[in-house]
């Protein structure tokens, strides 16, 4: 297992390089002038001051040298100061990450807790009413724009019926993580963010489970007289863990990407919201850092997924 993890980590290096190269090139190709943005609002700045700033920021170096400096900065997690908050970007992101993790982990759990059983139920009831209902709901869940679902949640259940709060993490004055107040606030964003996962799992898993049910070992289990339920749990569900993990990568991307929109809809102070605010405020260090950290989070979760993959399917390790 150790060897597998080490190999997987080495494989991540070119991807990491690609991510950093892409974000670097995008920021340097941009027609926006960083110094201009940095000093926005200061009218008494002289051309000499500008030249000094250019030099300090290393913007007069050749591109490859700039890239090396950039890599060094990223390695030391030095993304500079936010143009807007005038504080180190890393600190601001560090404060927001727990909020985002709480939201995305709960969404992932909800997607698994509802989506996986639905997929198995659909496969076991193939062609029956339950199968059709699950299929239709699943296609609909795919097609619904998640942010619109969130907006409907806020408008109908929040504004009109007042069952749920319309945004933020806690009631003003309350600041707690494990309490009813937080739970009440997190219901909307979690349901919305897990929607795609809930829709995706039945669609994908149904085919896989149908495949598994046809396998010889299931017939053997049946012929040796095991009860249907213990076959479903011990043989079918266990083997369907592999496709469950396969789809995990896509679901994680959706949850992380979707968080920008959902955190905006529900006014949830996470990483996605920070990225959005950075964009609105033209706070480029913030935007760049959020994108890099978001991609890093995704890279780490992909590695974790692959480790989980090797764990549920030992054949993977040999390859």
């Amino acid at each position, binding site marked *: 297992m150790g060897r597998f993890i080490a190999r997987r980590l080495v494989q991540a290096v*070119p*991807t990491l390089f*690609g*991510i950093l190269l*892409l974000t670097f090139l*995008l*920021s340097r190709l*941009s*027609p926006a002038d960083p110094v201009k943005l940095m000093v926005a609002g200061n009218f008494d700045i002289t051309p000499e001051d500008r030249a000094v700033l250019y030099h300090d920021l290393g913007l007069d170096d050749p591109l490859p040298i700039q890239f090396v400096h950039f890599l060094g900065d990223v390695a030391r997690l030095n993304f500079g100061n936010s143009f807007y908050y005038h504080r180190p970007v890393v600190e601001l992101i560090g404060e927001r990450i727990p909020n985002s993790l709480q939201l995305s982990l709960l969404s992932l759990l909800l997607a698994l807790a509802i989506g996986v059983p639905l997929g198995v139920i659909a496969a076991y009831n193939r062609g029956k009413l339950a199968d059709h209902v699950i299929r239709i709901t699943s*296609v*609909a869940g*795919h*097609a*619904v*724009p*998640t*942010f*619109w679902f969130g*907006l*409907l949640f*806020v408008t*109908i259940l929040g*504004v*009109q019926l007042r069952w749920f709060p319309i945004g933020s993490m806690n009631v003003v004055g309350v600041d707690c993580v494990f309490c009813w107040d937080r739970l009440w606030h997190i219901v909307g964003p979690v349901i919305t963010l897990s929607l*795609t996962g809930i*829709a*995706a*799992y039945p*669609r*994908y898993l*149904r*085919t896989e489970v*149908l495949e598994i049910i046809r396998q010889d070992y299931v017939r053997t289990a049946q012929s040796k007289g095991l009860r249907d339920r213990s076959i479903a749990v011990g043989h079918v569900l266990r083997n369907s863990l592999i496709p469950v993990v*396969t*789809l995990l*990568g*896509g*679901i994680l*991307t*959706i949850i*992380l*990407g*979707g968080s*920008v*929109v959902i955190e*905006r*809809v529900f006014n949830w102070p996470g990483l996605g919201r920070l*990225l*959005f605010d950075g*964009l*609105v405020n033209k706070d480029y260090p913030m*935007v*760049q850092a*959020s*994108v890099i950290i*978001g*991609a890093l989070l*995704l*890279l780490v979760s*992909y590695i974790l997924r692959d480790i989980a993959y090797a764990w549920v399917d030992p054949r993977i390790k040999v390859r």
Partner: protein
Amino acid sequence: MATAQTAVARPTAPVELRRASAGLWSDALYRLRRDPTTIAALGTLLLLVLLSASADLLADNVFQWSFSKQDILSSYEKPSLSEPAMVLGSDELGRSQIVRLLYGGRVSLSVGAFAALVSMTIGVLLGISAGYFRGWWDDVVVWLVQTLANIPTLYLLLLIGAYFRLNPVTLTLLLGLLGWLGINNLSRGQTFALREREYVVAARTIGATPWRVMTRHIFPNVLPLLIVVAMIDVGAVILTESALSYLGFGIQPPVPSWGNMLTNATQYSSRAAWLIYAPGAMIFITVLCLYLVGDGLRDALDPRLRGSIGGAAATKKTA
């Protein structure tokens, strides 16, 4: 696809008498005609395209209200049948919701269709060539795919949207440039399988150039699957564009798009909740129809694939 040929030889339903098989496409048409859901979805889709295409005509003659016409006196008009232009109400500036929906549909549908076309082209070219030539070229393509797959598409779009000002054309190109991963993986995988088949080996043996083998022998076999994925892709692009426009980095007002109409509507949700329902419902219906048509085409082209591209679609959604 090679499997399609073998599928054609099997009877579709055990009861009906088999007519002579007339080839992949007419067989598909034969099956499609017996699938009311797909036909209904296709009909709705055509209707939407037709209505959006004739937005100018309808605005002038039926509604007599241009998409930019403001009328402060009739702002926040509730949906009513008093006037054709007000069947879906009006917004804060008294602009007709239904006329703006038609124009928004024109934008959303054409962005979706053209972006999907761009990504199909890139994905097929890279996928088939990587699968055919393998070696270092395949490594480069895989690296590119992994890098792009590791950055949430929405993050990347927002990053680029922040650095460069996007107009509908550049936005379309950009969505196409970032959306080819799924098609690439699919056509690359297919090519891997196809390149070792007898007829491809035979073509190579008698001296066919790589270009000829790829265009004449591999591409036609990948095509049926691609049409299916294209449908899903257009839907996915429409969802991404609407989320991006909702965040304010996609289609810019005054050009209406279903996404940016929702941005506007959220500001007035307590006063004019109806403004939230229609644009989202339009996105939902359009994407739902596209997915249903995609599913139907897949089953029609090759019934054995039932359910198999669902997983690919699952990971396409970005918002």
